């Protein structure tokens, strides 16, 4: 079934390839390679890099702490409404991130259904703070972790744990010596995916947490802001994000 393609296929396909390749080529060609290190270590860039690293890691940790138990619940238990829960987990995957940001404001904003009582009781507010960035990233990125780990747990299906029990292992031993080692590779893969998605987060962050240098201006926001100020900064930081994306692939 493999045949040489005729021109009515080759021409539009070639256009499509050019269209997808040229922007990446542009990024590589127009990068200020001679000033790369200088631009990368400018105060604004460094602040954005540091903030992205810190919030990205924090989001990944939160996603793991909350997401792994949720994955367990979806994969292993008989909780009612599991189908609904699974749909709930996938909504952030298809929801435009800006809408996610608005939704987060309505829930955790100063006048949100949770944020208002939270501020009244504790004085804590989330929007336009670094923790707010983490909230936005977790909302958008956690589903990747949940879905990956849930898949691994389903694949595990309890048979190996059962074998371990017949060999005399206690519940704690089974968890430590069988379950954890088996899920570890998927957990790492899910965490990497989550970290990458958190790093690239833009819409929900700018909507929920704003764009304050050093506080909520992560890499993608710095790229966006750099456009109006120092375009070479935008290009350099874009390359950093492109490199992360390609590494994750």
């Amino acid at each position: 079934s493999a045949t040489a393609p005729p021109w009515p296929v080759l021409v539009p396909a070639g256009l499509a390839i050019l269209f997808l390749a040229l922007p990446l080529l542009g990024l590589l060609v127009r990068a200020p390679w001679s000033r790369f290190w200088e631009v990368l270590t400018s105060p604004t860039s460094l602040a954005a890099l540091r903030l992205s690293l810190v919030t990205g890691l924090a989001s990944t940790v939160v996603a793991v702490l909350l997401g792994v138990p949720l994955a367990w619940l979806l994969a292993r238990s008989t909780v009612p409404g599991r189908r609904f829960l699974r749909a709930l987990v996938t909504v952030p995957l298809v929801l435009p991130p800006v809408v996610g940001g608005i939704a987060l404001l309505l829930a955790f904003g100063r006048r949100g259904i949770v944020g208002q009582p939270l501020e009244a009781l504790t004085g804590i507010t989330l929007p336009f703070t670094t923790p707010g960035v983490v909230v936005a990233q977790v909302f958008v990125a956690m589903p990747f972790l949940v879905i990956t780990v849930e898949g691994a747990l389903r694949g595990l299906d309890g048979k190996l744990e059962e074998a371990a029990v017949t060999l005399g292992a206690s519940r704690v031993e089974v968890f430590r010596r069988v379950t954890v080692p088996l899920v570890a590779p998927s957990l790492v893969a899910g965490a990497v995916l989550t970290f990458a998605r958190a790093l690239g987060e833009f819409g929900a962050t700018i909507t929920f947490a704003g764009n304050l240098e050093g506080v909520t201006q992560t890499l993608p926001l710095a790229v966006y802001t750099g456009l109006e100020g120092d375009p070479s900064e935008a290009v350099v930081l874009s390359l950093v994000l492109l490199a992360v994306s390609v590494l994750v692939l």
Partner: protein
Amino acid sequence: MSGLSGQVVVEQGAFRLDVEIEVAAGEVVAVLGPNGAGKSTLLRAVAGLTPMTGGRLSLGTVVVDHPAADVLVAPGERRIGLVFQDYRLFPHLSVLDNLAFGLRSSGVSKAESRRRAGVWVTRLGLDDLAHRKPATLSGGQAQRVALGRALAADPVAMLLDEPLAALDAGTRLDVRSWLREHLTDVGGPTLLVTHDPLDALVLADRIVVLEGGSVTQQGEPWEVARRPATRYVARLLGINLLPGTAAGGEVALDGGGALHVADDADHHGHVLVAVRPSAISLHAAEPEGSARNVWRGVVDGVEPIGDRVRVTVSGAPTVIVDVTPGAVADLRLTRGTELWLSAKATELDVYPA
């Protein structure tokens, strides 16, 4: 070491398993039965993975499950070795560490458990595999490691759940021979669940046939193979089993028709007649000769079985007949072909139902 004995009762919805079981130390008992007969449930109940809902089960002098007295020993504390059909080796551990798993679980140090596992590796002829991961093993190797893992944990009894079912034909042969050799390493009672009659015939000292949750026949292998008591065993062994009523050297079959039997023993009342499919001949025209049983039939099915072709022929009685491929070509056998059947009285095996 001492035996396994008791009555196992498990009720799951509409299904009820109720089996008296008695396996002496060193004895291998095969539980043979169709899917859904409760074979695996029996095994899981003995292992403690599925609690019994009735009865009472002892391992040696220890009662391990007795619902009425609220006694239930956890699976990990029974020290029963279980070999699963799908191996269930730990993929993140080497073969050696898989074998050491049971010892580690019983509190033996890492070094010591590895040393002891190494002894088993050698005893079972797995030296070349010791440092490989399960994913790199063939099915046959994996099942040998799985048996080794169970043996290395020093079990008081062994349970094997269709240990050869997932293997291809050639490998099954190797592992069966290997099992036959190494099941003697088990000092305690061994229970082998299978749906392959050959496993039961070759590996077991005694066969228990389980159907619909109950034992329908038990005995030594040759006994079960020659004189099947139920339709299931007969079909499994490919023997025609015809129930009927005997009187005066003739059996009036329950399904229609009658057969002359030559047995010297005087049979009376309800009997079973076993006829091997190769003991029946097919003819295009009415045969003349010494065969005392001749009847007509219509071909209902034709299937190849190794070098023979199995033909199902409707008639009184309806039987399966094995013929050579040459006969298929000569008689142009296909569904609907009408023909004559004959069977010598001396080829019929008659015994009380």
